[in-house]
């Protein structure tokens, strides 16, 4: 099963690279959904089936909850939000997609270097998990920094959280899952709130450009919009 989890983690890396190069919102959301499904599958693939027998109820629960929440519920919510607000469906990057892809590649390469330096051999389920986790978190942060839309930043945040999940699945197979569920709840609430917020912001300002929201500090502008 080592091999299967490696393939899964590689696909995970690919979704990161694709996310950096994707220009439209719905495919990007679907890519994040795919990441959710991968995270659901990951604990099952990392499980040492031959030695430890079938995994317990807790593992199954986490897998199913992760897949449902991250792979189904949150993406559906985001897709709904995007459709509802008729947001322009492009990502509006601050740096071009080509450069984004190159930068994410550099982030991935750097994470491999870091993962190699860390040498956390104890309790580690897959050698690839740590660098992939770092790379995913890096990609998430990069998306938050480099994209203009509020929806995209939510996506970036989700990707970042996915990175934490991979980290948890890779390192703390037993106890991490509980913590993991806690974080998941946080994220769920956050994305839910943001999903509603996006709708409300759009109704108020007719725009989802966070650059424009920066100007909210200016009281005149606020009045102007009202």
């Amino acid at each position: 099963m080592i091999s299967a989890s490696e393939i899964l983690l590689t696909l995970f890396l690919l979704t990161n690279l694709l996310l950096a190069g994707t220009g439209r919102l719905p495919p990007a959301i679907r890519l994040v959904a795919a990441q959710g499904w991968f995270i659901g599958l990951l604990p099952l693939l990392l499980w040492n089936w031959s030695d430890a027998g079938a995994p317990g109820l807790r593992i199954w629960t986490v897998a199913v909850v992760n897949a449902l929440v991250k792979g189904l519920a949150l993406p559906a919510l985001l897709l709904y939000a995007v459709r509802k607000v008729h947001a322009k469906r492009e990502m509006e990057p601050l740096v071009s997609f080509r450069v984004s892809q190159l930068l994410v590649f550099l982030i991935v390469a750097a994470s491999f270097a870091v993962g190699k330096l860390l040498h956390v051999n104890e309790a580690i389920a897959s050698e690839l998990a740590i660098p992939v986790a770092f790379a995913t978190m890096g990609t998430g942060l990069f998306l938050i920094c480099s994209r203009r839309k509020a929806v995209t930043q939510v996506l970036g945040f989700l990707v970042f959280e996915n990175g934490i999940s991979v980290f948890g699945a890779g390192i703390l197979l037993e106890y991490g899952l509980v913590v993991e569920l806690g974080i998941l709840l946080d994220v769920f609430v956050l994305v839910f709130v943001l999903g509603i917020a996006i709708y409300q912001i759009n109704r108020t300002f007719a725009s989802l450009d966070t650059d424009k929201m920066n100007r909210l500090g200016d009281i005149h502008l606020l009045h102007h919009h009202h």
Partner: protein
Amino acid sequence: MNIAYFLLALLLAPFFLGLVNQTKAFFAGRRGPGLFRLYFDLAKLLRKSCPRAATSTWLFDLAPSIALAATLLAALVFPWSLEAGPTDAAHAPLAALSSVVFFYLLGTGRFFTVLGALDTGSAFEGMGASREVQFSALVEPAIFVLLGFLVLLTGGDSLADLLAGYQTGIWAHHAAPLLLAGLAFFAILLSECCRVPFDDPETHLELTMIHEAMILDNAGPDLAFIHYGAALKFELLAAFLVAMLLPALPFASALRFALLMGGVGATAVAVGIVESTLARMRFLKTPQVLLATLLLTTLGALLFVLF
């Protein structure tokens, strides 16, 4: 022995393009032109005459023949029996250099196809040629980094070593880099063979063509040479992909060859499925995807070195 496989492969080449088209027909709910359509087309074209535009010169006349010669030689260099090591007597003299020679021969073929297109002076053929050199220039580094990765993986020299020189266990330990390399080469195959999403072999509008635009003026035996060369190139690159992903197989060489051809058939079906489900990409988007193939192969090599 390899010569026999080589001849068999030459014979089979048009079949695989038929397989692609038949797959596409299946997805579109049509009956399709049949698996052997290209054979009939080639036979028909060989009987026709070659009219040529008043603008063109000897270069236009000779280009298809030279391009086909280069592709045929590349096929001769290819290790059809998938036998690694020095036992492969037919290729022993070329051994260490066959991998680079293989891809550069395909490059010579393209060089002359492009010149043949430019020789007509047609705006459309100039446009197709321009796009062709752009995309192939961007694919080249990905191909050679991939070769470097295979050298790293197998420690071998020749194409035979690189493609068939590693043991089954590698898939268990180095699945990730192999997967990345396979994906990247599949994209390279689609780009080099002018398939969707990079080019559309069935488009009717000159402005959206690449390969088809370059050969608008060709007819008769020249067109037959070009079509056959394209089919052979597809078979070659698909065989490269399959052989790269398959570990060394402990079978008789005939069985290995059969497996290889089966893999090429599967690749053809996969290409057909891709073409049925994907739209062709905007030209401006293409360089980004080709850059991604380079990144993928580099990442694969990096993964292999580090883990």
